[in-house]
């Protein structure tokens, strides 16, 4: 958990009253939409098909139960009773009235939640591993560094008026749960040969119209120098960044055009000139931030409590435990992932009732803390193993115990044409149909790890490029069509998927995905070979044949 300081609170409150005044002037006609648009975007407010959409930041994916209850309150009071968790550790409300937005912002500000850095051409909220601080084998809690970067970049002029939006992600584990290779800057905490802590710095990743996997620009930057190094990258980007062409102004394009070697040289030159000036972090500054993250007073608990031994006889509990419960760094504790992907439901949505009930459970079983991950699922980070059977029962009653984490029905989908004004095609109903096709969780378990990602247009909010199976909505003569790629991945071995053939119409997408999965089951050389590994071994051709032979 993180405690905001006075400065942050003052800043958040000032922003709320400023926005209240701006909304008032907009509604009276004193401000035109053209003048107001940039102001509302600075406060996370977009205009969508049906209404304004309000995006709220959940920094590095950590929420207190007080905050979660307040999000539930906003969903209930100002929206239609639910919220949508996104792939960037944000939550979106889809039906907020502009006239009521200042009140919603004020209610959230009371618990230290805000919408800064969720939209506009600036530094976006720094995302991190949702298991930060609890994952076994982690170098150290990456959120400390997320917070140092957040403090430095919030409202800093160099970062507030960038050529385009700018996204940073941090991981501190071997297995990358923060998808750092598809961010403008990706940071991987590790130790060098001398045992010092620092970062591998990656740059130029991103999806959208021109997707790139980030490249390593420096294998090791000492922790104390990470701010100045990021600043050097930003300065080079700001000098070159092509503000004239909206499609080209992302850093990935610059890195691609200059080449990583030349870009790295320019950054090094800039960095050298900065010397070890103002931006070098001293030990005190780092410790000060570290001290504001508090960890629970864990008990000394057995590795295998009796409660767990007894519950092992219940096959439903066992199936859920094997799927959704992960190892914790402290003996006797677990990390529990909650699937927001029920069969037939829209991925990532949670109702106000679910949020409230989850907050109660987190108070009882997880030291009052909840995490939000980029897969549009939630997690309870500190659950004593002896409590798992009771927690399972409670989740099950809430519809939050779907045992499909990382399986074929754990689909990441953007809002698509049901909500989004930029969409070509719908995403959510495709996801819903797929979850019905693979509704049998035992079968899904036998298929194994398989990530399906769906975007309704090339902006790639659903990360389709890096889905094991990626589905992209396109438009053909006014009809919804979908391009399908296979073999992408978002982890430490990130790569783009390969197109398997011509786009298929809406009504055929679920059939095609079933064909692909069946082809995989026939082709894998043993049950442990993951879908992505079979595609890697055999290429897309056998899948293409299977899908298009009869179409």
């Amino acid at each position, binding site marked *: 958990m993180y405690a905001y300081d006075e400065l942050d609170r003052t800043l958040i409150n000032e922003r709320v009253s400023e926005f209240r005044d701006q909304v008032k002037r907009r509604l009276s006609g004193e401000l035109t939409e053209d003048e107001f648009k940039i102001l509302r975007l600075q406060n996370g407010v977009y205009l969508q098909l049906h209404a304004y959409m309000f995006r709220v930041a959940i920094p590095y994916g950590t929420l207190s139960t007080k905050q979660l209850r307040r999000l539930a309150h906003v969903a209930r009071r100002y929206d239609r009773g639910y919220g949508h968790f996104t792939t960037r550790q944000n939550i979106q409300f889809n039906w907020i009235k502009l006239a009521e937005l200042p009140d919603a912002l004020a209610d959230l500000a009371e618990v230290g939640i805000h919408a800064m850095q969720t939209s506009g051409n600036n530094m976006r909220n720094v995302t991190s591993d949702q298991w930060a601080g609890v994952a076994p084998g982690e170098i150290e809690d990456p959120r400390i560094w997320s917070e140092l970067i957040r403090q430095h970049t919030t409202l800093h002029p160099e970062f507030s008026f960038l050529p385009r939006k700018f996204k940073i992600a941090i991981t501190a584990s071997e297995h990358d749960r923060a998808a750092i290779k598809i961010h403008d800057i990706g940071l991987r905490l590790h130790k060098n040969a001398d045992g010092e802590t620092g970062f591998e710095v990656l740059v130029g990743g991103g999806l959208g119209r021109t997707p790139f996997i980030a490249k390593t620009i420096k294998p090791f930057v000492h922790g104390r120098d990470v701010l100045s190094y990021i600043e050097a990258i930003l300065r080079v980007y700001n000098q070159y960044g092509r503000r004239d062409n909206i499609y080209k102004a992302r850093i990935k394009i610059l890195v691609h055009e200059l080449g990583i070697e030349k870009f790295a040289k320019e950054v090094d030159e800039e960095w050298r000139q900065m010397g070890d000036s103002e931006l070098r972090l001293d030990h005190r500054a780092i410790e000060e931030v570290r001290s504001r993250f508090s960890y629970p007073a864990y008990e000394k608990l057995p590795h295998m409590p009796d409660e767990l031994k007894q519950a092992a006889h219940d096959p439903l509990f066992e199936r859920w435990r094997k799927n959704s419960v992960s190892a914790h760094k402290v003996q006797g504790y677990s990390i529990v992932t909650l699937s927001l992907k029920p069969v037939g439901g*829209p991925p990532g949505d949670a109702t106000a009732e679910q949020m409230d009930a989850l907050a109660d459970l987190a108070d009882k079983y997880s030291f009052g803390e909840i995490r939000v991950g980029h897969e549009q699922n939630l997690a309870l980070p500190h659950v004593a193993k002896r409590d798992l059977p009771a927690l399972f029962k409670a989740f099950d009653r809430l519809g939050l115990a779907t045992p499909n984490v990382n399986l074929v029905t754990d689909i990441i989908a953007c809002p698509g044409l049901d909500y989004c004004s930029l969409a070509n095609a719908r995403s959510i109903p495709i996801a819903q149909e797929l979850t019905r096709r693979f509704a049998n969780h035992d079968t899904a378990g036998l298929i194994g790890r398989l990530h399906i990602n769906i975007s309704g247009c090339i902006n790639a909010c659903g990360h389709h490029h890096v889905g094991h199976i990626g589905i992209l909505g396109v438009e053909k003569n006014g009809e919804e069509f979908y391009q399908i790629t296979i073999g992408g991945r978002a982890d430490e071995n990130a790569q783009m998927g390969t197109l398997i053939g011509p786009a298929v119409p809406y009504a055929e997408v679920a059939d095609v995905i079933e064909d692909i999965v069946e082809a995989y089951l026939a082709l894998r050389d043993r049950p442990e070979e993951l879908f992505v590994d079979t595609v890697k071994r055999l290429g897309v051709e056998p899948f293409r044949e299977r899908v298009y032979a009869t179409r």
Partner: protein
Amino acid sequence: MTSPLEQKKIRITGPSVVTANRTWDGAVVYRTAQKGWSTELSDSAIVSTSDDARALLAEAAADDVGAVGPYIAPVELKDGGKVKPGNLREQIRAKGVTIDLQVPA
């Protein structure tokens, strides 16, 4: 906002309306013949020539306090004079999302 230049280029191929989102709450609205906005598609002013479409859009765009982002959208006229949205996007705007939102038991 549609720039004057873009408005000049507008060509319609069938019956059309002007639609936007209401400023205070974002609701989907349609321009009426009485120079107001309505949440009912059936209240909308229907144009069938490009000149009329441009004129309706220009008139609607002048009301920046009432509604945001006006544009011309196709409609279908059914027997008996019923107006239907002309494409899927407009159908979703008129009728709401195509997903049944999950409600906990």
